[in-house]
């Protein structure tokens, strides 16, 4: 009983992902793996090693040895010093004739048997992180672990570069690959337009008027969707891609609208005289959750499509100003004092979830497409970092982002 009390107290004191006890318990269930660089070691090949370790860690299925190891790629004999591992992953990265290739094989450490082999190539050398992500997601699948395909996705984000200046960029989830795609003026609130990440929506100001654009990433073609005085933001895209949740202010009053792409008609969903923003589809599209100050402070509410009724979702905190949803689970950022923002989960029926962070500035939470991982931005004196929290695995990762302020992001 005393042991259990100690466990409970430790978890409640340090909260969710900061509870080392939980992480150590999980460690025993993960497969130990060493990663060996079989390339002629370079700066990039060493970064690839670090990305392998990160991918394996965030999967929650592997306990990756962080030590950088190198040896010949050819030959499958496992170094006796690595026999304590379950697996050894060997890779070789080459850049020849405009092709960047990653060869990967997985050996069972106990008997040196090769159980997985793969070859991944890309023409753009800057995109080498995606080769690693693809390799690890396939190794994970071959070993029959739960899918982690989200690591192959792009993150789209906007960051400020000056007064009334911001740019939109693409990145891999570790932010080793970062590419500016839109710059000049204010470019805000990028949001993926479809699950396959072939298009995105974003806001720009045209002669001072907030305008929503759709950008086709395959053709580079940009089209105006709609515009509004005051503000316009695409907060969410329905899973079929046919409807958008917009925050607009045609009369200077910000409310949430559902915009039908086919008919170009916007239906007003909220009518509160204060602030309603950040609409997100929840409960398989039967409701939206959103942020409103209708109780005098920013908090999370939901609106039922069938009845039109609005109910409070979060009964914690006095400044909850950002929300995302997956099914009936929401994640929100709560301001808890000067310079402290923490992430929590809750459920659309009003029941509470659990704390995910315990200190610092943690904002912009976004669920992965499978709902198992949360991306967020952590700000500190050292600069910004993108963080990942595995809801089932209790694994967490942080990657540095530099000191430019992130405006918003989508995953």
């Amino acid at each position, binding site marked *: 009983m005393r042991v259990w009390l100690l466990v409970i107290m430790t978890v409640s004191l340090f909260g969710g992902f900061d509870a080392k006890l939980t992480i150590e318990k999980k460690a025993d269930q993960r497969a130990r793996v060493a990663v060996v660089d079989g390339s002629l070691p370079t700066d990039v090949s060493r970064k690839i090693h670090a990305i392998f370790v990160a991918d394996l860690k965030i999967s929650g299925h592997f306990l990756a040895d962080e030590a950088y190891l190198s040896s010949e790629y050819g030959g499958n004999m496992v170094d006796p010093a690595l026999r304590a591992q379950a697996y050894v992953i060997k890779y070789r990265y080459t850049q020849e004739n*405009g092709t960047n290739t990653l060869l990967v094989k997985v050996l069972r450490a106990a008997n040196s048997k090769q159980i997985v082999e793969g070859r991944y190539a*890309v023409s*753009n*050398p*800057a995109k080498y992180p995606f080769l690693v992500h693809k390799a690890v997601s396939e190794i994970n699948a071959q070993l029959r672990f739960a899918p982690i395909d989200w690591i192959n996705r792009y993150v789209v984000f906007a960051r*400020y*570069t*000056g*007064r*009334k*200046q*911001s740019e939109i960029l*693409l990145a891999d989830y570790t932010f080793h690959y970062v*590419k*500016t*795609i*839109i*710059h*000049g*003026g*204010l*470019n*805000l*609130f990028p949001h993926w337009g479809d699950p396959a990440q072939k298009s995105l929506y974003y806001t*720009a*100001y045209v*002669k*001072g*008027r*907030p305008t929503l654009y759709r950008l086709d*990433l*395959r053709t*580079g073609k*940009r089209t105006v969707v709609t515009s509004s*005085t*005051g*503000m316009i*933001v695409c907060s969410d895209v329905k899973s079929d891609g046919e409807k958008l949740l917009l*925050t607009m*202010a045609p009369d*200077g*009053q*910000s409310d949430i609208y559902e915009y039908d792409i086919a008919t170009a008609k916007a239906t007003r969903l909220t009518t509160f005289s204060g*602030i309603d*923003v*950040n609409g997100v589809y929840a409960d398989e599209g039967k409701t939206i959750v959103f*942020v409103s*100050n209708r109780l005098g*402070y*920013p908090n999370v509410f939901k609106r039922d499509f069938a009845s039109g009724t609005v109910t409070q979702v979060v009964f914690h905190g006095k*400044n909850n*100003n*950002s929300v995302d949803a997956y099914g009936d689970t929401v994640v929100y*950022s709560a*301001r808890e004092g000067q310079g402290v923002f923490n992430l929590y989960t809750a459920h659309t029926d009003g029941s509470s979830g659990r704390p995910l962070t315990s200190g610092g500035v943690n*904002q*912009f939470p976004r669920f992965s497409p499978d709902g198992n991982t949360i991306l967020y931005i952590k700000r500190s004196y050292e600069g910004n970092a993108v963080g990942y929290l595995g809801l089932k695995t209790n694994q967490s990762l942080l990657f540095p982002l530099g000191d430019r*302020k992130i*405006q*918003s992001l989508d995953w």
Partner: protein
Amino acid sequence: MIKTIPTIISLVLALLFSGCTQQRAPIPEGGQVADGQVSLDGGEVTGGVDGDGKYTGNDGVSRSGFKMLYFGYNSYQLDNGQVQRVMGDLPRIAALAKRSTIRIEGNCDEFGTDEFNYALGLKRAKAVKALLVSNGIPAAKIAVVSYGESNPTCRGSKPACHAKNRRAEINKGR
């Protein structure tokens, strides 16, 4: 049409799927725009912050020369002091409205999430518009817009510096 819009979209297809090296335009740094100076450290901020988080200094003018209007944390209410600042400028604002349009820009500090901040900035601008309309300025002459936290006048870490950014600006329309 696209060429008339200052935003530049790179050849996204090439960026995503080709082996081209990254071509970035020079990224403008903060404070380069003409509409007022940006304080990097907040060192020259002369005012303080009241209990509601509102800036208490009398300094700060928009690029059109009208007094800045300050707000408390998460607030879009103009208190008596701020109303008096508007009333002091009202004759010149009315004169401007006769020959041009007026644009009210709402702004926020860096705290909170940007979507909420953009809506908050808009409510601040709208509160100023309501005051002007109630004092005889035609509503049709006034446009409101929010810049959220994208347009700070002070980028230091002092509370008074953040308070200076919780503001609305009255400017000549475009």
